[in-house]
């Protein structure tokens, strides 16, 4: 019977794996360069930041919340980090990275307190902080731009260096993914996040410290957004106050495409990361396939829809076969 639950869990990600295989297969067949080592490296690099963000977002979304402010947190962290690197080159890089993560965590804490303690619905609270954090970022930057030449080359190298042939940002994202995935699956604290998302009232009755868990989910999500900000600065090398504007919808799309229920309670970070991979894969594929530039956005949207529909249809099929067998499976 555990097979059952296991099967459902696997099927939830199956849809998107199928979509990924199709995407890579078709694109690779048309243009083998897409699947060359360098091509794959590009895709990993492209998806690293969004994947990191999607993992953080998943933490929040499973608790039946959402963090729209991620893009602003990435922006503020990227700018903050770049500014310190440019103006205070004596500060060691690891300290800067830690600082950015902390800055992100602090933003996450603001969201977490608003949502967990002050009981502002997450969509409202983080739509508010989406504006507010960006406002702070703009005020801080005041039109300034930090350029590649202003930042230490050692830092910029982090954005593209390879370890064993795999780009460093992708490794970071993978590490984050595995760590968070492990916590969510194996630790009671992780399970409790799912419980909160599945039924907040029942979670209170079960004696789960709901506030604390929700706040920590936001803080962790914020910290990952801070990390993503550093990755952004290292990778693009040009940072101003508009960094990552509008990326919040991409992140949420990745999470949703990855099969994480937007109303909480189910879904995995692996799915979300696959979703991120799929979405950046689509963008890359469209660029590689010589799809008419004007049609790209439309095709992108259509593919997102196709992916969620595929996922849904597979889930429905499973549900149907499950009902047929329910009598014996009760």
């Amino acid at each position: 019977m555990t097979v059952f639950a296991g099967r459902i869990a696997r099927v939830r990600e199956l849809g998107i794996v199928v979509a990924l295989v199709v995407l890579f297969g078709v694109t690779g067949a048309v243009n083998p360069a897409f699947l060359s080592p360098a091509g794959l490296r590009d895709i990993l690099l492209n998806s690293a930041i969004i994947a990191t963000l999607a993992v953080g977002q998943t933490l929040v979304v499973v608790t039946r919340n959402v963090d729209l402010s991620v893009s602003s947190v990435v922006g503020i962290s990227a700018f903050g980090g770049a500014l310190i690197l440019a103006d205070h080159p004596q500060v060691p890089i690891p300290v800067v990275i830690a600082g950015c993560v902390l800055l992100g965590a602090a933003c996450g804490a603001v969201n977490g307190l608003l949502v967990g303690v002050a009981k502002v619905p997450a969509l409202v609270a983080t739509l508010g902080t989406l504006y507010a954090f960006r406002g702070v970022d703009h005020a801080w930057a005041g039109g300034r731009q930090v350029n590649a030449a202003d930042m230490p080359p050692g830092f910029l190298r982090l954005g593209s260096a390879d370890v064993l042939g795999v780009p460093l940002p992708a490794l970071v994202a993978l590490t984050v993914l595995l760590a968070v995935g492990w916590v969510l699956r194996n630790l009671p604290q992780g399970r409790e996040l799912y419980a909160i998302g599945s039924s907040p009232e029942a979670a209170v009755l079960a004696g789960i410290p709901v506030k604390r868990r929700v706040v920590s989910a936001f803080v962790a999500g914020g910290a990952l957004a801070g990390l993503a900000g550093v990755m952004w600065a290292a990778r693009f090398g040009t940072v101003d106050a508009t960094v990552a504007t509008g990326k919040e919808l991409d992140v949420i799309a990745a999470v949703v495409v990855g099969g994480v229920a937007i109303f909480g309670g189910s879904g995995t970070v692996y799915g979300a990361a696959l979703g991120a991979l799929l979405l950046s894969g689509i963008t890359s594929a469209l660029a590689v396939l010589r799809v008419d530039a004007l049609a790209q956005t439309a095709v992108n949207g259509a593919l997102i829809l196709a992916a969620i529909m595929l996922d849904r249809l597979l889930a429905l099929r499973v549900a149907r076969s499950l009902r047929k067998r329910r009598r014996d499976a009760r």
Partner: protein
Amino acid sequence: MLALREVSKSFGAVRALRGVSLDLAPGEAHALAGENGAGKSTLVKILSGVHRPDEGALLLDGEPVEFHGPADARAAGVAVIYQEPALFPDLSVAENVFMGRHPRRSFGRVDRRAMRTRALDLFSRLGVPLDPARPARGLSIADQQLVEIAKALSRDARVLVMDEPTAALSGPEVERLFGVARSLRDQGRAVLFVSHRLDEMFALCERVTTLRDGAVVATDVLADITPDDLVRRMVGRDLAALFPKQPTVPGEVALKVDRLTREGVFTDVSFEVRAGEIVALAGLVGAGRSEVARAVFGVDRRDAGSVHVAGRPLRAGSPTEAMAAGVALVPEDRRQQGLVMDLSIERNIGLTTLKWGLLSRAAERARATDWAIRLQVRYAGLTDAVTVLSGGNQQKVVLAKWLARKPRVLIVDEPTRGIDVGTKAEVHRLLSELAAEGLAVLMISSELPEVLGMADRVLVMHEGRLVADLPRAEATEERVVAAATGRPA
């Protein structure tokens, strides 16, 4: 062991408890009786740390304690089964049972295997064939209740508080639950048992405390009093017959169900209900009764078979059409299916009679008032959200909402679940009166006395099939139970 001293609790203007004292002794099962809205659940929630008393104190082993939340109560050894199941639909049944106190392995990891075996063990003690790995979503109310029970039992607590745990259960499950509760009691635990079924209190408990309007009326030793005494304490007066079924002459066939099948749920169900007739659908939990009702009403699709109302076929899967044909369904899960909890009482009652055009508030109010009075709903104002009503009063609102439509065929799924004796008699009288006026009633009930007392005919389901059709005269407790458990009568 656990005691309340002079506890009061108000919600706004409503004084739910006033100066209540209660002692739970080790090795004793204590019953809590009272009408709907008397304050039983509020008392339970104070014991479990959900609410904090405005005045008065909680004593644990003689020492005053304060519970700041359910976690505190749990730490103090209090396990609670709430009146409304509160499960995590997305999580597995096993995880539901152990949420908040997972068994651990190295590195603080959750021990899934232990969770599974312990859940299986609990379910076998309760005699429920539930799969611990299935998600809680889609469990019937009864199964949900059983998971709640397993949850509380798994806690191995010193005090077990049960708020109407049996409301959705039928005979055998209740028996098993009592078996487990008795053995806990005999191990020196304290048990608090809330129910509207008097026989159950007498069967399980030693003492009973009766609440009326939030205050304690009396605490009696059950062996010294009769059910009538208890009813008098609760209601403050004597009650007329509980099941006042008037004899009626069945008229035309109002509802005809033919070979109805929904794969994996029920098979080949055929029956008729005539105008003026009350037909009971009996069976064990999970026999598929509610599912039949849902398919007849059209909220679930059917895979085969047909439904006719007054000779006209009903299209599958359209509640709107069923309603237009005069069918009404009072569903079993009032919070999810019966009520829009955030809406006011009057708007809930008005929900079934909505027309597309402009609404008349006056008419809506008038209809709501009318039905609220007829069903004796206890409320502060008709504009209050139904959330603030006690469980039984919520049930009455659901009834009112459907009766307001003046249906031709009324399907009621556990119509008196969680309703107190006084109101139950009232509901029964009402059903019987409506039947006498020509209404066809299909009543699903897990309470055998209700089935036997009210029905003109008893249909019994077992594992998704209709196994018996007994006229009133032949419907005895033995025959119904035999059919329901699949034994030849």
